[in-house]
């Protein structure tokens, strides 16, 4: 799974594709290539979903046009057809992005669409209502990275919980785009959360890897 491009705008061409889109609202467009993880013939969506719920419990409140979560909660596996499966993965990433940025930026509602290309079939455009471009970008990279790890059978780690908590905290301190004095913040974060300074430095580094403070370059995330 790889994010090819992220852009931010109104995208009027796709406005009518989800009647819940708010008129004039800005959206994040994420171009996502989805491949089944190497060595995996079939995704265990049910397991991935249950793991996601531990990290993002408000996923349960999402309305999904595909009834994706209903099937997963009932421990039903989804279609194993190759194209369907990568479509479900892309759609799951979209849900995670929506949940992350909705919680971080305290959006009352957030809608999106997952558009699958005719060619190449593994490519998707995700359009998601977005109040804060930088949080949207972070949410996109974090979501893609997280879903990829979970599809490989891994579990959310303590750092995942902390990163989400930290981004919420930082956004409450000041606009994220002005985070050019991070060093001075590290001690305060460590003190406020009771985390070690070392772990805070490490988390800040991860946040940079997720593109939080660089709106131009695509993050150089490790290949999983």
């Amino acid at each position, binding site marked *: 799974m790889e994010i090819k491009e992220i852009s931010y705008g109104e995208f009027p*061409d*796709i406005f*009518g*594709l*989800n*009647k*819940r889109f708010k008129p004039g609202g800005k959206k994040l467009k994420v171009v996502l290539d989805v491949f089944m993880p190497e060595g995996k013939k079939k995704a265990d969506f049910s397991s991935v979903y249950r793991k996601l719920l531990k990290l993002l419990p*408000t996923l*349960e*409140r*999402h*309305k*999904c*046009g*595909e*009834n994706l*979560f*209903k099937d*997963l*909660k*009932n421990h039903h596996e989804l279609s194993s057809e190759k194209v369907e499966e990568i*479509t479900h993965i892309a*759609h799951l990433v*979209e*849900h995670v992005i*929506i*949940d992350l940025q*909705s919680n971080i930026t305290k*959006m*009352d*509602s*957030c*809608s*999106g*669409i*997952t*558009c*699958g*290309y*005719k*060619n190449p*079939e593994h490519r998707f*455009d995700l359009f998601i209502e977005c109040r804060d471009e930088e949080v949207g970008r972070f949410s996109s990279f974090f979501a893609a990275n997280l879903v990829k790890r979970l599809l490989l059978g891994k579990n959310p780690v303590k750092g995942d919980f902390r990163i989400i908590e930290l981004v919420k905290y930082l956004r409450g301190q000041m606009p994220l785009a002005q985070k050019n004095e991070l060093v001075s913040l590290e001690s305060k974060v460590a003190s406020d959360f009771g985390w070690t300074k070392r772990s805070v430095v490490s988390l800040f580094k991860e946040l940079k890897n997720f593109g939080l403070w660089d709106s131009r370059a695509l993050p150089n995330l490790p290949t999983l």
Partner: protein
Amino acid sequence: MNKLHWKNPGDLKTNIDQLIGFVENSTLRSELSGSKTKGGEGEEKLSHSTSKVEDQNLKLLKMPSKYATILTCSFEKDQKMVLGGKLLP
């Protein structure tokens, strides 16, 4: 809740305007089976999973031609939804 998952309307050869629309809280699946389907060459078939149809013209959506499928979703903070789609008290 909308469910959209259709072949691009630009590919449709049948008149689907009277058949397909968006319906709040309904599911919709439309698919055209043409020469690439088991329906046989030249045969066109349109199916969808709901009988609820509104008058909205699918062609008015102007779905970009490069897309084959669209899936929708939304999150509303104050509306507690369980997975089955029922509202919690």
